[in-house]
């Protein structure tokens, strides 16, 4: 237990607002989410923020901490504080509802826009699909499947910042994962959805999504895979047909 206090600047307001400073006692192993929760419970109950699981599974608690998008429940203050201060803001590239809570609708609508959902053709009466874990497609799907939808990648993407219609790294990572799911039956729809200007070909391969992803996924690699797959499907045709 340290006697020091942490000076925490927290964004208050919506798109227009200001940083308000709070003094929070420092604890060892304290996470950024602990800090925000302390402020809301002990100092200012009107502070709005979002969290659920507190163990890095639900993807609810991402915020901009000291200028960088992070999952706050698994980010320890000791690892990122600058002296004795911390600046906490809502995620970039998403409309602010209030304080630290952002409107995630557009983010998830883009998953839908990228056909980022599974559709099979078998029913509960069919036998289980047999997928070899060591098959290449399954390995590629595994590489991106642990996405928790926290939007850290989306908030870190400079292309999303400059082009609001860009599907973004999370939706494209999901689309790439599903293109490697051999049970899915909407592959051509998906390739068409992610092709072109608002899709994978807009990615500049800056790599911020991959650098910031708290699950250590690589949307950059997935988008690169989509670029090749879509282009080959457009020029020569894919195993699912030509675009």
């Amino acid at each position: 237990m340290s006697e020091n206090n942490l000076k925490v600047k927290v964004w208050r307001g919506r798109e227009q607002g200001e940083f308000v400073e709070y003094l929070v006692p420092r604890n060892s192993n304290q996470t950024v989410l602990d800090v925000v929760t302390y402020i809301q419970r002990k100092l200012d109950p009107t502070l709005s923020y979002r969290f659920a699981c507190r163990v890095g599974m639900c993807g609810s608690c991402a915020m901009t901490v000291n200028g960088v998008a992070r999952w706050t429940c698994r980010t320890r203050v000791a690892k990122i504080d600058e002296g004795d201060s911390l600046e906490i803001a809502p995620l970039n590239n998403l409309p602010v509802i209030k304080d630290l809570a952002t409107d995630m609708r557009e983010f998830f609508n883009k998953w839908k826009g990228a056909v980022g959902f599974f559709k099979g053709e078998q029913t509960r009466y069919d036998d289980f699909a047999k997928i070899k874990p060591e098959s290449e497609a399954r390995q590629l799907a595994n590489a991106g499947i642990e996405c928790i939808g926290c939007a850290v990648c989306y908030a870190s993407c400079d292309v999303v910042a400059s082009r609001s219609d860009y599907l973004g790294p999370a939706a494209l990572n999901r689309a790439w994962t599903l293109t490697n799911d051999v049970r899915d039956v909407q592959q051509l729809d998906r390739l068409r959805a992610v092709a072109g200007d608002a899709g994978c070909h807009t990615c500049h391969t800056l790599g911020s999504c991959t650098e910031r992803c708290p699950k250590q996924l690589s949307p950059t690699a997935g988008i690169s895979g989509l670029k090749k797959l879509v282009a080959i499907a457009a020029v020569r045709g894919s195993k699912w047909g030509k675009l």
Partner: protein
Amino acid sequence: MSATAIRSPAIRTAVLQAKLWYAQRISAMVLGLCVAIHLLIMFYAIRGGLTAGEILGRTQGNWFFAIFYEVFVLACFVHAPIGIANILRENFPGSSKVAILPWLLACLILVLGTTAVIGVFTGGVGI
């Protein structure tokens, strides 16, 4: 996939962009090879100084150089305008006036590049 979706202009544009991306990647591979060969030849060629006569002596009537540099020009002709079009589309979204610029660039590269290739092949005779 329904026929309606296939006819959708947005999807047609997206598929065209995918094809252009493919063309740009293939032309980049050709350019990578051409630039490497070109640099190696230059390093070799300038050992004893660089004169127009020496260059023309090597390239005049040489079909290998003519074909090599025309492939180089064609790769530039494909690669550069697609890149410029992407940059313009991102920086001037919705502006149709700038759409002509990549086409102009493509024509310039093809005409000036091919003229240069013919020039070094013929030694300037007849141009």
